């Protein structure tokens, strides 16, 4: 399994790490800290819908969410594997982490496609 999959998983991990590094801090700061504290005004419900409705926004959201999940899956897998020395559970850990990221990607894709 190793030969064919490691580079692909690492590519997803790296792309996710880079995207997360560039976009997530500002999103968390604006959406979930500054706006709830009233420091900035977020778009109204209708405007936000229009913004997310734009195909480009949906594409960016899909890439960020999906790759961030694969970034987590890869890192967390090795944290469990080496950090807790769970070598005998290697297969199970891989299935759970990458599986979660795959399911998350599909759910995200579906949610963005059917977004009103």
């Amino acid at each position, binding site marked *: 399994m*190793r030969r064919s999959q490691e580079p692909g998983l*690492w*590519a997803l991990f790296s792309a996710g790490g880079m995207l997360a590094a560039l976009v997530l801090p500002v999103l968390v700061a604006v959406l979930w800290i500054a706006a709830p504290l009233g420091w900035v005004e977020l778009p109204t419900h209708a405007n936000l819908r229009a913004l997310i409705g734009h195909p480009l926004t949906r594409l960016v959201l899909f890439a960020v969410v999906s790759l961030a999940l694969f970034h987590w899956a890869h890192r967390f897998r090795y944290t469990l594997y080496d950090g807790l*020395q769970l070598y005998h559970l290697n297969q199970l850990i891989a299935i759970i982490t990458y599986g979660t990221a795959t399911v998350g990607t599909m759910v995200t894709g579906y949610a963005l496609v059917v977004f009103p």
Partner: protein
Amino acid sequence: MPDTVTLEVQRYRPEEETGPAWQRYEVPFRPEWMVLDALNYIKDHLDGTLSYRWACRMGVCGSCGMLVNGEPVLTCATYLEELPHGSIRVEPLRGFPVIRDLIFDLTDFLNKLKRVSPWLVRKKEQPVADGEYRQTPDQLAEYKQYSMCINCMLCYSACPIYELEPEFIGPAAIALAQRYNHDSRDEGVQARMDVLSQHDGIWACTFVGECSAVCPTNVDPAAAIQRYKLSATLDWVKSTVLPWGKR
């Protein structure tokens, strides 16, 4: 300034003991002394049975690496004076089986080193009459840093992954593979990639980065491995995602 310093040395005498034990030695403190000088003082004046490896005393041979206060260092390049006051703990490098006292076995590394073909691989040797393989200073600069490795094993000792997964080929061997990969005279990139693109090659590494932090010659094996991952991934993209772009 104190006139003596205490060294706590890890002893292991397999014919007497089932596991390691600590032994304390009081040695003169001299500001110009390295930890290795203190060990030599013990060997010459206090206890001739203490076993450890050393040769050049000048950071070139790479045989006197030990854990000093838990950090992997060359004992010939660590002043007694630069260590915090109090006793100094000296142990064999971590991650290797200990043969006796401060001496560990490095057969495993030597076997791994061979696997990455750390020499110039040529498909066909050029006849002597054609002259030497010429290289520009820029081409030399591509690999020179990696060629500074003295096989001292400090990077292996600093690497938790090597300790956890002894199958891992490890920092120095991969850096030395890159040393030849980046050499303009070499043609062995593919053969080394076949060995290193396995899990026990580059992919076991999770980039702790301590290998580079402890390297006495600034080789930066961590960078060598991450660059290898990037090129292995680009290779994979070329051959899998874009099958028409096969090399």
